[in-house]
């Protein structure tokens, strides 16, 4: 009987997740330039990816993006969750504002920030100029391009992570905090010694989610920078997209890159999870 209840979900899961994943893995061992005729090439696609001169830059870009994105997102979402949790006035309003970017389409996010960050007519540089600053080429200079996409990536997901952490915060027994306050602990001490340790399981979830999101980032970056300037914001998913869907289409190569991405995300998630469990056990 229980299997009957989970059957519809399992059907969808197998049809749209498991089967395409298996098929993708299978295709990664074939070559196809038209998506209809497949020639077996063994591990040729994997060797081609590791021999591709652009893959080193893509790997570097992805690593840079993921590291900064995960660290900044986690720290800021903890900070925002703490602030919102303490708020007495217009609580709902501020939570809605924080969550608003999550509800925007990533394509819209890319387009909005493309306008905001425009070097010549963007409002950000207008403000900077009014304040006596220059006109940085956010979308023209490779280093600034990476900073811009990290910032926008954090902006998009911050509300989502903050709301999860907020739920974790509200699960903390208030009597513990009150007892610490009565014993003379400062606000900072309460956060450091009580709240953050108790928030560890939720923070671990955020770390895992942020790592997955970081590796999977593509849509808003594609509309914001298109992977430019000069490939500086081309991450692994765009590399997969370009190989699989841009002319000439190479489904085998795209699938092989997808399998590599899966293995990376799986390894990082497992590592995060194991480290988190180990710390909890201590």
């Amino acid at each position, binding site marked *: 009987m229980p299997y009957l209840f989970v059957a519809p979900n399992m059907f969808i899961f197998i049809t749209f997740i498991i089967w395409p994943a298996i098929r993708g893995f299978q295709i990664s061992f074939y070559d196809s330039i*038209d*998506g209809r005729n497949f020639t077996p090439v063994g591990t040729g696609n994997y060797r081609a990816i590791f021999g591709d001169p652009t893959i080193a830059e893509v790997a570097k870009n992805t690593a840079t993006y993921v590291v900064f994105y995960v660290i900044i997102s986690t720290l800021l979402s903890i900070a925002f969750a703490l602030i919102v949790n303490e708020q007495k006035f217009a609580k709902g309003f501020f939570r809605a504002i924080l969550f608003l970017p999550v509800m925007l389409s990533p394509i819209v996010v890319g387009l909005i920030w493309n306008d905001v960050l*425009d*070097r010549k*007519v963007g409002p950000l540089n207008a403000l900077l100029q009014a304040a006596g600053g220059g006109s940085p080429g956010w979308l*023209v200079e490779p280093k600034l391009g990476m900073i811009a996409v990290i910032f926008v990536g954090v902006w998009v997901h911050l509300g989502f992570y903050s709301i999860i952490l907020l739920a974790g915060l509200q699960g903390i027994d208030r009597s513990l905090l009150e007892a610490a306050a009565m014993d003379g602990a400062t606000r900072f001490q309460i956060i450091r010694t009580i709240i953050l340790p108790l928030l560890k399981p939720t923070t671990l979830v955020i770390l895992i989610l942020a790592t997955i999101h970081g590796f999977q980032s593509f849509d808003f970056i594609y509309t914001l920078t*298109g992977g430019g300037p*000069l490939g500086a914001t081309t991450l692994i998913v765009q590399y997969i997209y370009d190989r699989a*869907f841009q*002319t000439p289409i190479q489904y085998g190569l795209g699938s092989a890159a997808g399998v590599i991405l899966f293995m990376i995300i799986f390894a990082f998630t497992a590592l995060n999870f194991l480290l988190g469990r180990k710390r909890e056990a201590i």
Partner: protein
Amino acid sequence: MFIYVLTERFQTMNKSLRSKIAIAASLVLSAGLVATGLPSAQAAGLQPTAAQLAAWKGKEITYYFYNDSQAELDTTKAQIADFEKLTGASVKLDVIPYTSLDSQLQARLAAGNAPDVARLNNPGLYIQDSLDLEKYLGKKYAAEFLKGSTLQVTHPTTKKLIGVPYDLTVNGPFINVDMFKKAGVAVPTSWNWTDLVAAGKKVQKATGSEYAFAIDKSGHRVSTAMSHFGAYMVDKNKKNVLPLSKARAEKAIKIITDLYKADQAPRDLWIGTGTKYSSPTAIFLAQQTPIFFSGNWQVASLNRDAKFDFAAVPNPKELNGGGWPGGKFLIAFNASKTPDLAAYFLYYLADAAQMEQMDKAAFWLPTRVDLVAKGVKYASRGSDMDVFQADAGKTPAAAYGIQSVPTLTGKIYDKLRDLMTEAIAGKITPKQVVQQQIAWIDTQLATLKK
């Protein structure tokens, strides 16, 4: 002309009368064809047979379509409605953004979900998937179109027609006449690239505009400037001819990259959009540049959206003047379940009456020999279209050489665009752009020999 009048009248008749006439006409034609021994489609061509009409009734075909202007979409919808009345079949219009035209279509073909007919700008990618039009529309059908324009839709080995040129495009500059007047710069009737750059800078200085010049981020558009200096990439014999004109190509590339590097052209738009196509149309419409180098397909949108006086002006002339050949094509797919209906729909869209209607509404240039001979009378912007038509005539024959490799044209243009990006960012020099482009073309041409 008589046939066009008949066709137009035929379409305005009520459905039952039309069916009767169509059946009667097809019977007469069939009898004639039996007598002459010609294949039915080849000789009849113009009208479907009664059997076809009966078979098509209630059938649906898909038209994979993109549009540069609203006028193109509106006209297409109206023409589809007429076609549906004429045949009893229905047409599902799939409107696709230009930037994902090929990626979506290739994914659809791979998934076994091919459309029946598509409007494309890179037909070389679909040679293996296209319907042999000769089988349905006859061997003489190709002769209805301008000879040069059918090169890209001629099968490289069988030499059969696999699509039709739907419109001819000519690259060229637009200017903001108001800004030119304000700056006291005369509207050019002939000029070279030095004059163009000087005029752009003068207008920029006088009007305080952001930029002096803007060009579509496209290797196809840059090829026009190279052609002006007498530099070409591939000739009609599928040979890499860029090594013969290296210095001339460098000159053209340097003029454009220098403008971008000096911030006198929208560098952000070119560098900040990765490997995607982008057009500075919005920048021209916002009056941030007095000169916009694009092509005639922009006329309809500019005519609708520009809040200022603009004009198409002749291409700059160095060794050569004129534009650069391009265009959009209609292809029917061999995976179609009703190939004769797909072929007839393509035929219908590209017939003289429909093409003339579209040309007038969307400011297209015709590809049909009869329409070119007759001339299309545009209700407005006639002088702009005259400029483009004149430049089409001045386009050097060597510019058509690249069309001898229809499967590679897109790749060659894209590589040039990406190398230009590196040059604009100061990562490589124009000389290196040319060197790397030569090497790339050699590699690509070598794949044809495999």
